[in-house]
């Protein structure tokens, strides 16, 4: 069986602010890491591989530096890696990102199962997985909290639907997104890291994709536009209490207004 896991490199910290004068985005540091939710997707793939012999490939999209997260996945046990990287993908929103990734998945050959994390920590939309499934015309199940049975034809899973748990069977090819906590993600192994240090990461550009309509990628393929970014409104009416008596004063205020 062939499994593809979609992973993303995200900023290490999430502390971002807008400079009120220049409108420039100020980011805290430049470190980046593998999207934490993707670790659960990777671990799900390893667990499935334990039951049905499989080859696991990862796909990521981003600048050349994003190879780092693919390398990291190698040291966890992933077999192959592909990076989609091209300036023509720049400025992509959810729709254009999903389309490029779906094209990238097609370029990876026949795939039985695609696994995604629940969402990313920088976009927080949880939309890319389902959109890819639609583009690939395959079924998907989101928010999988448990994998009950794996066969060479299908998966039986528990999907967390909020108020209910649904037990469902889904045949391949299909896409699943997994909940945080489905398994405990493994740590990268030093031995794997050494063994895979020279393993090739295939880089796919726009020209390698099947659909070469530029209107479907990057900024042009993105129906949503960010009109402006701004800091949340400030709050001038607040009452602040300082010093040693602050707690007593605050309590008096809350009691007086019958809030406590």
């Amino acid at each position, binding site marked *: 069986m062939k499994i593809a896991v979609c992973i993303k490199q995200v900023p290490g910290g999430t*502390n971002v602010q807008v400079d009120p004068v220049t409108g*420039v985005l100020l980011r805290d540091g430049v470190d980046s890491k593998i999207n934490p939710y993707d670790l659960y997707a990777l671990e799900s793939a390893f667990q499935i591989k334990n039951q049905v012999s499989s080859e696991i490939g990862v796909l990521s999209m981003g600048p050349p530096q994003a190879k780092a997260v693919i390398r990291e996945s190698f040291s966890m046990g992933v077999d192959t890696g592909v990076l989609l990287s091209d*300036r023509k993908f720049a400025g992509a929103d959810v729709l254009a990102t999903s389309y490029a990734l779906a094209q990238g998945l097609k370029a990876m050959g026949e795939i039985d199962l695609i696994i995604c994390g629940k969402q990313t920590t920088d976009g927080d939309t949880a939309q890319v997985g389902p959109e890819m499934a639609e583009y690939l015309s395959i*079924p998907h199940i*989101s*928010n999988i909290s448990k994998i009950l049975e794996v066969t060479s034809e299908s998966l039986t899973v528990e999907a967390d639907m909020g108020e209910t748990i649904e037990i469902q*069977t889904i045949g391949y090819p299909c896409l699943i997104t997994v909940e945080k906590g489905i398994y405990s993600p493994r740590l990268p192994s030093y031995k794997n890291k050494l063994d895979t240090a020279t393993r090739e990461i295939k880089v796919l550009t726009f020209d390698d994709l099947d659909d070469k309509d530029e209107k479907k990628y990057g*900024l*042009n393929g993105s129906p949503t536009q960010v009109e402006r970014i701004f*800091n949340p409104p400030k709050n001038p009416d607040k009452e602040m209490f300082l010093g040693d008596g602050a707690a007593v004063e605050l309590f008096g205020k809350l009691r007086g207004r019958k809030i406590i």
Partner: protein
Amino acid sequence: MAKLVINHDKINHKKMMELIDLCPFNAIEEQEGQTYINSGCKMCKLCVKNGNGSIEFVEDENVTSVNKKLWNGITVYIDHFNGVINPVSLELIGKARELAGIISHPVQAILIGSNVKKIAEELEHYGVDQIHVYDYKELEHFKVQNYTEVFADYIEKNKPSSILVGATTLGRSLAPRVAARFRTGLTADCTILKMKPNTDLVQIRPAFGGNIMAQIVTERHRPQLCTVRAKIFDIPKRTEEKYGKIIDHKIDIKKLNSKIKVLDVVKKDKEVSIADAEVIIAIGRGIKKEEDIEMIQEFADLVDGKIACTRPLIECGWMSNKLQVGLSGRTVKPRLLFAFGIHGAVQFTAGMNGAETIVAVNTDEQASIFDVAHYGIVGDLYKVIPKLTEEIKRDRRITF
């Protein structure tokens, strides 16, 4: 193709270094002495605005756009389970009514399921103009491809301008497929919605997982889709008299051919939900040790509150993720919320700024939690909470 053009003649080495520093995504780099934009570019255009003409944004000449006049109405997807409408759908009907008023569009509901006649009749009490119903036994369970087919059928026949979907598990799975089917925009977890006179839906949401709001529009495509969390908007008052028209739709059931098998649906145990709590005591990184939560519990018991938390406390395993408030947790709207040791990233505040009264305690006077708080104490929670606890206890002794 819209793109960034680099005017190399206007860039010396110093300028190049400035541009490299300017880009928040590290997408500008030096290659063989020349400025180069790599694929990390998010087209935020900061380099265009602040680069003094060294980088230009060149727009596509023949931008195609839909005829917006052909798309009419604001549609709300009705999420329901066991014959009960999910409150978020009613909240969205209220908002849709307000938005539709600005552009004189009708408000529509789309109801998909099996045996949903009662739900359709209930919707007649919430001021929806058209209630579009697809009632088939094949639609008893949510299978995403079947629901997408139905939604697509509805959109093709009715051409709604905007579609609002509750950000439930189901909504977050269905809306992206519908958006991809129509190759249109979808904005997740909007916290503010407005309407422009030209029917463009203004969608505002926290972005970059941090302290920033992004205002997003879908200028050239219809329908425009967004998802909204529960408890962001208010449920409109249920009217005694009926209003609106129920429209039954037919669809070729051969299209409802999803191969997914639903083996069982188990109701989850009713857990202590922070979403329904009247008083919430939210704690964050200011808590130093797991044992210190006992001190918070004592305070919570005194004010009849439930403890909730921010993401870091989930990550260190001290609290269950069911107790997380924020974009990746729950949205809460209690009568009173205490935020102890929480800095207040938008990620968190987006999930709680609907609270009636917010009281914040933080050592950092600049903490953004004070931007949403009604009452604030700049101080150490380890000193403030025991003091507050003592005050309440003393007060109770006098009362009883």
